[in-house]
C-alpha cells in the first residue's frame, strides 16, 4: 500500500482505531435518504426570560410580580386558557397549530447556577451543578458513535464545550469557504502528505497530526458539499438567520452530520427588557420559520429535530431597571414533524411557590430531554453518553 493511500484510509478509519466499543456503525443509512436523523441545537444565550416568552396571561401573580414589564393580555397570542405566545412568536404559533412544536415548561436542574458561564457549561456538558466536566454531551456522543469532526458542526468561529469529546471534537465554521481556505494551505498539504507514523494519537505529536489531518479533510468535505447545495427559502437578513441558512444548506447537501449547533445572543435583559426581547424573539422566530420552510421544501424536515434552550430563565419579579435578573428554570422548544406529544408538554410551575431566590422551581430535568433525544431520536444508549441514568420523556 502506498503511504498516501494508507493515510487516506487511516483518516477514514480513525474512529475505528480510537473509539473503544465501536460496534454499531455510525450510520448505515445514506445521509441523503429518508431516515437519516439530524439534531439542531439552538441556544438563546444570555438567559431568555421564559415568562415573557410563553406568557401566563391569566395569572395574577405574574402581573403582581411585574407591574412594568408584564405583557398585557391583548399583546399575547393565546393558545390555552392560561398560556400564550409573545407577539413576536407568531411563526411559532403556526408551528404549534401544525403540530410541529412541543413546549416543555420549567426545565432546569437541582441547585441551579446563575452565572452565564457556569450555567452554559452545565447545559452543554449535562453535568450536575457541582461538577466541572470537560466534555460536552454532543462531544461524548461523537466519542461513542462518530468518526470525523464534521459529524457535529457548530456554526461559529470557535468550538463550544458542547461539541468537545474526549477523543473526537466537532468542528466550527461560520463560513465553510473561509475555513476551507485556511486549512488548505499548500504547505500543510505537503507536510501532511509526507507525514509517516502509524501510531497517530498515541503521543501528543501524533495527536496533533491526527487532528490536523481530520480538520483538513473535514473542512474540505464541508466546503465541497456546501458548494453544491442551495437554499429554497427567503431568510431574514441577520447573523442568526445566516447561521440557520448555512445549516439548512449543509443538511440539504446530504452531509454526514448528526448534530448542528448555533446560538443567538443578547438575552441578558437586566434593563429595558421589553424592546430588546421583542426584537430578539422576532429574529429567532422569523429565522426559524424560514429554516423550517427550507427544510420542508427539500424534504429534510421529517428527519430534523430542532431544540431551543437557554442557560437559565429569569427572576419572576422584575427589577428596578425595567428588566429581570438571572433566574433558574425556563422553557425548551422542540420543533419537528414526528412529535408524539405536541403543544404544551406540561403545566407552568407555580408562580407563588418559588425557590429561595424567587425563581421558578424546575419540574423537568434538562437531561431527561437529552436522554429522550439520544434514545428515541438518535437511537443510541443515552446512559453511556450522559453518564447517568435519566428517565425519558414521551414527546418523541
Amino acid at each position, binding site marked *: 500500500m502506498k*503511504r498516501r493511500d494508507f493515510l487516506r484510509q487511516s483518516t477514514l478509519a480513525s474512529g475505528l482505531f480510537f473509539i473503544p466499543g465501536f460496534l454499531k456503525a455510525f450510520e448505515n443509512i445514506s445521509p441523503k435518504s429518508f431516515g437519516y436523523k439530524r439534531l439542531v441545537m439552538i441556544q438563546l444565550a444570555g438567559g431568555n426570560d421564559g415568562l415573557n416568552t410563553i406568557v401566563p396571561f391569566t395569572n395574577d401573580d405574574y402581573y403582581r410580580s411585574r407591574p412594568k414589564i408584564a405583557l398585557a393580555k391583548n399583546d399575547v397570542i393565546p393558545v390555552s386558557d392560561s398560556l400564550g405566545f409573545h407577539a413576536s412568536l407568531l411563526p411559532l404559533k403556526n408551528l404549534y397549530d401544525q403540530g410541529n412544536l412541543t413546549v416543555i415548561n420549567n426545565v432546569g436542574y437541582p441547585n441551579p447556577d446563575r452565572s452565564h*458561564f*457556569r450555567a452554559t*457549561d452545565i447545559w452543554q456538558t449535562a453535568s450536575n451543578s457541582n461538577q*466541572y466536566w*470537560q466534555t460536552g454531551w454532543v462531544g461524548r456522543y461523537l466519542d461513542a458513535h462518530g468518526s470525523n*469532526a464534521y459529524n457535529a458542526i457548530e456554526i461559529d*468561529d*470557535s*468550538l463550544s*464545550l458542547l*461539541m*468537545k469529546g474526549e477523543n473526537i*471534537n*466537532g*468542528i*466550527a*465554521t461560520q463560513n465553510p469557504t473561509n*475555513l476551507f481556505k*485556511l*486549512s488548505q*494551505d*499548500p*504547505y*500543510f498539504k*505537503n*507536510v501532511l502528505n*509526507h*507525514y*509517516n*507514523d502509524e501510531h497517530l494519537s498515541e*503521543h*501528543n*505529536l501524533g*495527536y*496533533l*497530526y491526527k*487532528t*490536523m489531518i*481530520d*480538520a*483538513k479533510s*473535514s*473542512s474540505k468535505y464541508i466546503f465541497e458539499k456546501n458548494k453544491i447545495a442551495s437554499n429554497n427559502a427567503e431568510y431574514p437578513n441577520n447573523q442568526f438567520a445566516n447561521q440557520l441558512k448555512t445549516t439548512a444548506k449543509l443538511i440539504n447537501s446530504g452531509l454526514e452530520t448528526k448534530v448542528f449547533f448555533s446560538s443567538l445572543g443578547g438575552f441578558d435583559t437586566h434593563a429595558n427588557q421589553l424592546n430588546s426581547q421583542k426584537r430578539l424573539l422576532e429574529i429567532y422566530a422569523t429565522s426559524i420559520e424560514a429554516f423550517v420552510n427550507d427544510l420542508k421544501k427539500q424534504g429534510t424536515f421529517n428527519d430534523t429535530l430542532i431544540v431551543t434552550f437557554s442557560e437559565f430563565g429569569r427572576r419572576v419579579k422584575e427589577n428596578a*431597571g425595567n428588566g429581570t435578573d438571572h433566574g433558574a428554570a425556563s422553557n425548551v422548544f422542540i420543533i419537528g414533524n414526528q412529535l408524539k406529544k405536541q403543544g404544551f408538554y406540561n403545566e407552568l410551575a407555580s408562580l407563588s411557590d418559588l425557590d429561595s431566590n424567587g425563581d421558578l422551581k424546575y419540574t423537568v430535568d434538562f437531561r431527561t430531554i437529552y436522554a429522550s433525544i439520544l434514545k428515541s431520536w438518535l437511537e443510541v444508549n443515552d446512559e453511556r453518553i450522559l453518564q447517568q441514568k435519566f428517565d425519558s420523556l414521551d414527546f418523541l
Partner: protein
Amino acid sequence: MKTKQLQHLFLRAGFGITPQLVNDLSKKNKKKVVDFLFSTTTFQPLEIDLSELSIYTQEYQKNKTFSMEFQRKSNEKIREYNKIWIERLANSDTLLREKMTLFWANHFVCKNQNIYFVQQYNNTLRKNALGNFGDFVKEISKEPAMLNYLNSRQNRKKQPNENFARELMELFTLGVGNYSENDVKESARAFTGYNHNFNGEFVIGKYHHDEGLKTFFGETGNFSGDDIIDIILKQQQCARFICEKIYRYFVNDKVNEKHLDELTAVFYKDYNIEKLMKFLFLKDWFYDAENIGTKIKSPIELLVGMQKMVPFSFQNTKDVQKIQRLLGQVLLDPPNVAGWKGGRNWIDSNTIILRLKLPSILLSNAEISIKEKGEFEDSFDKYHASNKNQKDFAKVTVDWDFFEDSFKNISFDQMKSLFLITAPNEGTETYLDHLSKSSKKEFCIQLMSLPEYQIC
C-alpha cells in the same frame, strides 16, 4: 549544559530561549544555569494607568448611569491589562516569576470586572509566585476579586455560603475526596463575615462573623479563616496536591509517583515555592528524555514563544483578544473556577488549523513558502508585499531586525533544532530538507507552522 537541556529548561521555566542566551549559558553547568534563572526573579508589579477612572468615587458610583459608565471603562481597561500582561510575558527578564504567575493564575482561578481588583489580584499572584504557599493562600482568601468570585461576601453567620470553603479545599489545597462535607461546613463558618471596602481593603464584618467553636480535621476551636488554612497546611496531602499540579505543568502530563514523592517531601517541610522549583530544576530526572518535548503548548505559550524568537507587538487590543479567544485561552477570563484543563484539551479542528496558520498570518501575510530547492526565488519582502490576504486579521509590528541579528551566525540545521524541541517526524523532516533554504525568515515561518512547534 547541553543545548537541548537548556531549551527544555527555558521552555518550561519560561517561553523558550534565544540563540544568544543559548550561547551565553551553554558553557555553564546546570547549577550555574539554575542559579542564573533564580537570580532574575525580582518582583515588578504590572500596572496600568488608571487615572482616568479616579473620578468614579464611591459617592459617584451610587448613580446608576455613572456606575455603568465605570463598568464599561473598567472592562476596557481589563482588556488593555490583558494586552500588557502578554507583553510582559514576552519581554520580561524575570521569566520564572512570570511563568509561575501564569501557573498560579490557573490555580487560584479568579475573574472580576473591576480593573482595580483585577490588577491587585494579578500582582498578589506575582508577588507570592515564588514565596511561601501558606501566606499565599491566606492573601488570596482576602483578595477583593476572590471575595466576589467565590461569594465570600455572601458568607454570613446566619446563612453561610460554602462556595469559597469548598473550592479552597477541592481546587486550591487538597483535591477532591481529601476532606469531608462536614469539613466544608465547619470551615465555611470560619470565613463568615469576610468582605472588602470600596478601596479593595480586606475587612471582617464582625456581626456576620461566626465566633463559635468549629471542628475541622479533628481539631476544635474558635478558628479564623487563617487558622483553617494553617490546619490544611498540616495535611501532607496539601503539599502533594500542589506538587502534583506543579509536576503536570512543568514536567510531564503523566506523573511519576517516585518523583512526586521527592517533591512532596521537600515542599511539606516549609511550603517554600522557590526552594521547590529550584529542587525540581536541579533534578537529573527533570532532564530525562521522557520529559523533554512531551507537552502541548498552551495558546499563551505558543503566542509568547513566537514573540521570543521574532519580537512583534499587536497594534490593537481587540486583535490580541480575538486571537486568544479563537485559540481558546483569554487571560483574565477563565472558563470556570477549575481553570483551563490544558494538554490535548487545547486542540480541536479549529484551534489546530489556526495554530498552524498563526505564524504566517501574523508575520508573513498568511503565506508559507513552499519553494523547493533551485526554484526561482523572490526576496522574502517582495514575495509577501504582493499579498494582501489576511492583512485585516490582526495588525502587528514585527521586529525582523532582531531576528536577523540573533540568527545571523546560526545555520539552517541549528535553526531547526532551536525552533523544535522534539525531533520532527521523519517524513516531515525529509520534506523540510528539500525545501529551498534561501531565507531564514521563510524557514522560521515554515518551522513555526509545523505540528512539532506546538510541542514544548
